[in-house]
């Protein structure tokens, strides 16, 4: 009986060894430095006179809006605007005239991959639009972007401080 059991066991062992198969599956993961933003300055229009020609701030002007894009070293990024116009509103203004302004974003933006300045060393022109334009972060994973625009106040515009924002989108291109 024992002999039969041992034979059966031997057969079992032999069968298990003979049937063993191995295989490998691949595991993948990518670690990417997330894109973040550091505010440099707001886009600012001072002394907008009602009923006058539009107040224009160029990307190279002191009043242009600035932001630093942070991400992976030397990575290429695609930059676009959500829209090329937005609305500024005045919450504290009073009167009978309009209390909102249309901000038209200037597509002639500026970038700098060397320092926080819209002009000078490292700076260049950059086309900002709702369709993305590509550029590269620097060796520190940084890029400065400066944006201008224009606003015009109606002759009966309510006087006061108007605020709003411009939406920007940035993503890695994979290059």
């Amino acid at each position, binding site marked *: 009986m024992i002999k039969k059991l041992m034979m059966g066991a031997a057969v079992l062992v032999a069968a298990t060894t003979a049937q063993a198969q191995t295989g490998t599956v691949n595991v993948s993961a990518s670690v990417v430095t997330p894109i973040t933003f550091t505010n440099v300055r707001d886009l600012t229009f001072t*002394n*907008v006179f*009602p009923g006058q020609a539009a107040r224009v701030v160029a990307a190279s002007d002191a009043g242009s809006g600035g932001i630093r894009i942070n991400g992976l070293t030397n990575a290429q990024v695609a930059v676009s605007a959500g829209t090329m116009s937005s609305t*500024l509103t005045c919450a504290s203004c009073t009167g009978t005239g309009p209390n909102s302004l249309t901000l038209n974003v200037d597509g002639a933006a500026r970038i700098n991959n060397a320092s926080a300045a819209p002009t000078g060393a490292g700076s260049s022109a950059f086309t900002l639009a709702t369709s993305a334009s590509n550029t590269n972060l620097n060796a520190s994973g940084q890029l400065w972007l400066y944006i201008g625009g224009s606003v015009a106040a109606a002759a009966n515009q309510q006087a006061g401080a108007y605020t709003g*924002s411009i939406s920007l989108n940035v993503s890695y291109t994979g290059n």
Partner: protein
Amino acid sequence: MLQTRFRFPPRTLCRSIGRRVRGGAAVFAIGGLTALSPSRGGAQSVALAARASVVAPLTVSPYWSLDFRTVTRNRRNTVPYNDVWSGAFSVSGLSGAQVAVSFALPTTLDRLGGGGAMPIGLWTGCHSATNSSGAGCATFTPSATAINLTLAGGTRFFFVGASVTPANSLPNGSYVGTITLQATYTGN
């Protein structure tokens, strides 16, 4: 007879497993991770703040009428800009802003009730940061041609004089006209 419960996988199953292994994507050794170049994506959005300061509109306030009082026929009757009877306006707005100021001036004063017109001209004027046409008031000639000046302190005062020469045939009565001052920001 002892029957085993272990069997070799069928041939068809072996072939399908092999295909899946050969068709695998990005490759890593099991248990290790390697950072790849960034894949497409990772889109982030941000709102860049924008601000605008809209200036209050200019305020033009007339407060003195140019008054010749009783005039003499066949004579030039003059009220200088620095006379107590000169006309006066004030213009208020953003301190330090440049404004363009011009005047719409009558050529005659018309008799109330009709029947006569008295020529008026030889306009004179001065403007000052204070409500005084004395020393320091800058002279100018009021006209439809704008002059640019700075609203130092946010307010500027304008004083206007002129001369009338009533004809001998002009009937008695009260004669009136209108002087209009127009001020606009230049944007500077």
